[in-house]
């Protein structure tokens, strides 16, 4: 099985089997263009440690057939409730996936950006939903605390934001 070389943003070079890294739509496209060339593929937006984690994920899920296909909705899936889609994403999480997401926030965010850049929809869903779950049901202040975000609204802006969103309580 052919080995592909990837060069991360920090210069680190990682080799990975082609069939594993082809779960990334971005890499798949590059390989199609590049053909049989052995040149290393630059992955400028992703650091070495994050790239290594993404490859771990792809390696664990290498045998999941569904991950190879473009993510077209299954018949009826486009009609599923948002809850059903989330439930399915969560129910498809195995123990590896749960452990995979037990990282600090910074790493989670980096993984989202990496999954988006590398076009790996199941990974994007996994980490995306994980962060979305951390926002679920939280009040404004709770979200600021969880995500270490400073309130940079002026008092008028804050009042405006409250009014603009008041319709939610009707």
């Amino acid at each position, binding site marked *: 099985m052919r080995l592909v070389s990837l060069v991360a943003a920090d210069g680190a070079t990682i080799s990975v089997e082609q069939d594993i890294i082809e779960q990334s739509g971005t890499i798949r496209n590059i390989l199609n263009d590049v053909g049989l060339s052995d040149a290393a593929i630059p992955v400028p937006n992703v650091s070495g440690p994050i790239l290594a984690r993404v490859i771990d994920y792809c390696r664990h899920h290498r045998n999941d057939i569904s991950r190879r296909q473009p993510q077209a909705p299954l018949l009826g899936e486009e009609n599923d409730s948002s809850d059903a889609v989330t439930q399915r994403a969560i129910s498809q999480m195995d123990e590896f996936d749960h452990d995979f997401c037990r990282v*600090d926030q910074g790493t989670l965010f980096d993984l989202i950006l990496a999954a988006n850049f590398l076009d790996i929809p199941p990974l994007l869903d996994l980490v995306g939903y994980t962060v979305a779950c951390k*926002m679920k049901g939280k009040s404004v202040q709770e979200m600021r605390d969880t995500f270490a975000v*400073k309130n940079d609204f002026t008092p008028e802006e804050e009042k405006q934001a409250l009014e603009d969103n008041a319709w939610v309580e009707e």
Partner: protein
Amino acid sequence: MALDAAPPAVAAALPAELYMLVFERLDSFRDLCECSRVCRRWRTVADSDGVWGAMLRRRCVDVEAERRAQAGVRGSKAIFAGWHRRYRGFTDSYTRMRRVFGRLESWAEANCPLLRQSLAPGLGWMGDEPMPVRELLDVVHDSPAMRDFIMAHHLHDGQRRRSRYIECGMFGTYECYGQACSLSWLSSRMLQVVAIGRFRILVFALCVNTQNYLSVVVGCPPEHEAALMHHVVQLQPQSHRIEDRGLFGDFIAAYVDGLVAGRHDVCNGLISMMPNAGPHVGSSVTRGIRTTVSAMFCFDETPHFRVYRYQVTFEIVDPAALGVDSVQLVSRHWLIHYSNREYIQAEGAGVVGEFPIISTAEPYFRYCSRMRDEPEGLVVVGFEGRFSVVPGTIDAPLGPEFSLPVPYVELPIPMEIL
């Protein structure tokens, strides 16, 4: 590694793109609105068209209809807010029924165009033109269980009719001994509440030929309220036999699921009322011919003893296994089971007076007949049997007769309300 511990100013430095990816995955619009109040950065992304476009799709909102109804509205979030206001209290029903009818429309477009064409435009919403749904509410009092029903009529006000009889009934058709039944969905103008004993039922689907119907219980004795109030039922007046099909929302979702899953054949463009799969269906394949028997209880027949309608379908599914171009039906043999464990054999030549030929040119034959309790008090519970067919024709056989067996079919026994 502390998990939720606030990392130093990490979140503030993140690109908007990342927030989009997360916000798009929030289930609840309430959470999205909370995000909008966190800080300026979050507000820009949480209020964006991309994110609210995703939310509108999640809730199956008809964006074009909302633009027309909310004149001058701009931006996906405003459309959503306006939708939420217009359908206050009904938003969950809206999403649920839009989903169900969306699936029905797609299925019908591909499999049953007659049905698709017959679905009438819906009633206008409160205060809109024409035919506001408020008039429907005079007949159907608003309550959580009836919201799905009201919303269904907002999406499609029943089936269009050019005459009393609608050929392609939404809830199925059958033909039995020359009597055609087409159970069609009534428009709101034709809804009526009927009193049956201590029940009041709202009839929403009807066949004018056979008086077969579907209804929602809108009034019932206190002892049955918990189990039956607002349920879709068929109820036989004098005998008080009842079939409970659940709350309207659940009933219509299950029915559409059945259509989409192919559990109802579509023959000559009409939906077969009797399913081809389930507990009251027996099916087997012999020498490439599939024989399917499907039974249902007749609420529209005499209440004095129970009558069941059953439908038999023959279909050549594997011409190679059959080996000949055609077979002719010679005789039928039934073993009818009764509740006291007795059984009776019933045999006869042909079926419904015919000796049909099933051939590769016409590989499909169906007929419908009736089964009932014996007048002496024997109560029928199920039946099985076989058909004898001959390869070629009876006059010019191409081989010996063989049997098409039918496995035991359990009859759907209706509940009795005392």
